[in-house]
């Protein structure tokens, strides 16, 4: 007599989805994806809302024609994989990342100045968290070099590290950027590490010489851009109110044409009235030639004029689905579609990530402001409230632990019953602060939307996994966020 005889089974925690006509399970506490056969599907139906003892389940499977040994094996597999459970289940807390988690990425805010005055800007707009008064407006060489040394020193055990240049408008401090690239490349090589760079820019200050430098040094470029002229010019304006489209359009074309070493990405901020996702995508992808386009709804407190209302978000999601279907068609032909909202999620699904925190902020990534103040990420740079120390004195471990403690999934009770939590983990710390005044609050305002989108990405993943699994290899190497 074995112990299994007395077990009574019920369903464990998973999310069921279809992909390419096949059935899959997303095992939520692990982040694992399994394709399942009809026998598993039968048990899932049988246990739906019911608890069934082991022997009875075996008998019923035998009555369906399964041999005794096969039925036992089927139940064993499902039990061990935690698809079904018996006895009490306790939510196992996710382990805390180690306190000395090595840095991988540094975001250098080369300046907090910008030549545009985009209404929704999280650095200057109505919801800003930055308190730049009395602080330097441009980072100096000494601070930048100290930051590079800090990254190299704090990235123990990592072979490859990364620096992102950010602003304000990054290119307003291009001389420093050039200097940092040369310095960091040399220092990293001396320590036997590899280093790469990227930058985010509004494209207004791009020149042929700058483009050549970016291409020669394999610097990844993300252009913040909201779409065709009438959408770009709505909120992305100069301080006199004039739109920026006409200025950047020829520069963006030149960038895409002449920067050949890295894919060029557009990053679109969706706002009320700028929700025509498909048209924006077609313009940026087909007319201008960006390689990848990523979309994100504006971060805002709910009452701002440019905040997208629920109906607007539904329409955004519908259009995301249309582009996602296109992405799938491309993937099944073995081609890469440029809609990076799908690509990024698929990359995480390939690994089966299960996040304790929504992103790497204050873990593998920190932001450094012009003053040398360290922030959890670029969005918190120059904010006294969220500072984690200064580059000259290092990270204040107590503040870091406080930030990470708040942001941990275990403290976000609303998330504990959600199937999207391995990927979402409650969502952006900064967005949570703007919405709820607490970086550790779950972003409850977009839960339904995230669940719907996660399900769509799972369906796409399933279809590709069933019909063109080789294609997923491309993502195995891609860094999970």
């Amino acid at each position, binding site marked *: 007599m*074995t*112990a*299994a005889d007395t077990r009574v089974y019920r369903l464990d925690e998973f999310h069921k989805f279809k992909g390419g006509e096949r059935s*899959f*399970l997303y*095992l939520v506490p*692990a*982040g*694992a*994806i*399994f*394709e*399942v*056969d009809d*026998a*598993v599907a039968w048990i899932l139906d049988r246990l739906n809302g019911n608890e069934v003892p082991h022997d009875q389940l075996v008998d019923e499977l035998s009555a369906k024609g399964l041999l005794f040994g096969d039925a*036992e*094996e*089927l139940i*064993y*597999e*499902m039990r*061990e*994989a935690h*698809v079904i459970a018996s006895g009490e289940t306790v939510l196992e807390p996710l382990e805390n990342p180690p306190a000395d988690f090595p840095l991988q990425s540094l975001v250098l805010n080369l300046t907090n100045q910008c030549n545009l005055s985009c209404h929704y800007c999280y650095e200057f707009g109505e919801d800003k968290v930055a308190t730049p008064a009395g602080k330097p407006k441009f980072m100096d060489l000494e601070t930048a070099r100290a930051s590079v040394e800090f990254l190299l020193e704090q990235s123990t055990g990592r072979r490859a590290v990364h620096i992102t240049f950010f602003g304000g408008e990054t290119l307003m401090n291009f001389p420093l950027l050039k200097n940092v690239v040369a310095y960091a490349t040399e220092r990293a090589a001396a320590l036997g590490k590899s280093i790469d760079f990227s930058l985010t820019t509004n494209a207004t200050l791009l020149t042929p010489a700058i483009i050549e430098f970016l291409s020669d040094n394999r610097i990844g470029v993300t252009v913040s851009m909201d779409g065709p002229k009438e959408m770009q010019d709505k909120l992305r304006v100069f301080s006199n109110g004039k739109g920026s489209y006409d200025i950047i359009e020829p520069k963006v074309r030149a960038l895409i044409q002449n920067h050949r070493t890295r894919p060029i990405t557009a990053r679109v901020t969706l706002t009320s009235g700028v929700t025509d996702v498909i048209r924006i995508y077609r313009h940026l992808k087909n007319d201008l030639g960006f390689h990848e386009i990523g979309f994100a709804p504006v971060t805002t407190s709910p009452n701002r004029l440019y905040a997208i209302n629920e109906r607007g978000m539904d329409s955004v999601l519908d259009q995301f689905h249309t582009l996602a279907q296109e992405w799938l068609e491309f993937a099944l032909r073995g081609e890469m579609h440029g809609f990076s909202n799908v690509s990024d999620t698929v990359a995480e*699904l*390939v*690994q*089966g*990530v*299960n996040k304790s925190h929504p992103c790497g902020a204050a873990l593998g990534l920190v932001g450094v402001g012009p003053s040398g103040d360290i922030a959890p990420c670029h969005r918190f740079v120059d904010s006294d409230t969220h500072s984690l120390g200064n580059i000259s004195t290092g990270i204040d471990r107590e503040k870091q632990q406080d930030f990470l403690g708040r942001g941990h999934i275990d403290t976000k009770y609303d998330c504990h019953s959600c199937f999207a939590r391995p990927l979402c983990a409650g969502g952006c710390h900064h967005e949570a602060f703007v919405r709820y005044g607490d970086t550790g609050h779950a972003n409850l305002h977009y839960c339904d939307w995230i669940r719907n989108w996660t399900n769509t990405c799972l369906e796409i*993943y*399933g279809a590709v*996994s069933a019909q063109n699994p080789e294609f997923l290899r491309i993502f*195995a190497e891609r860094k999970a966020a």
Partner: protein
Amino acid sequence: MKHLRAANKKARHIDDMIVMRKTAAPDGDVVALQNPTQPQARPHVPMGCTLSFSPGWEVDSAGGTAGLCQPVERDIYDCYVTCFWPAQVPDHLNNSMDWANKCAAATKDWRNLDLVFP
């Protein structure tokens, strides 16, 4: 696995783990200190403590610490015949003479060592 096909990296980890566990211990069986990555029983080397003229807890027969009285399943068995160590095992002289008859190689057959009720 037969009915669940791992479709991402995390699932493959789980799959490997289950297969490993299954090979090491059939369903419902007791798992002691066997090494699950080496399910094949290694030969039983009788290095009971008495053979080395020193209690096996400190040094082994070779004077080192590599062959001390572990794993416990071998230790229990060895205490039965070869060792003076007063472990709580059945008495092989009078009451339980056949206690270990089904246990030819302790690392493999230790499951056959059962409780006795004198």
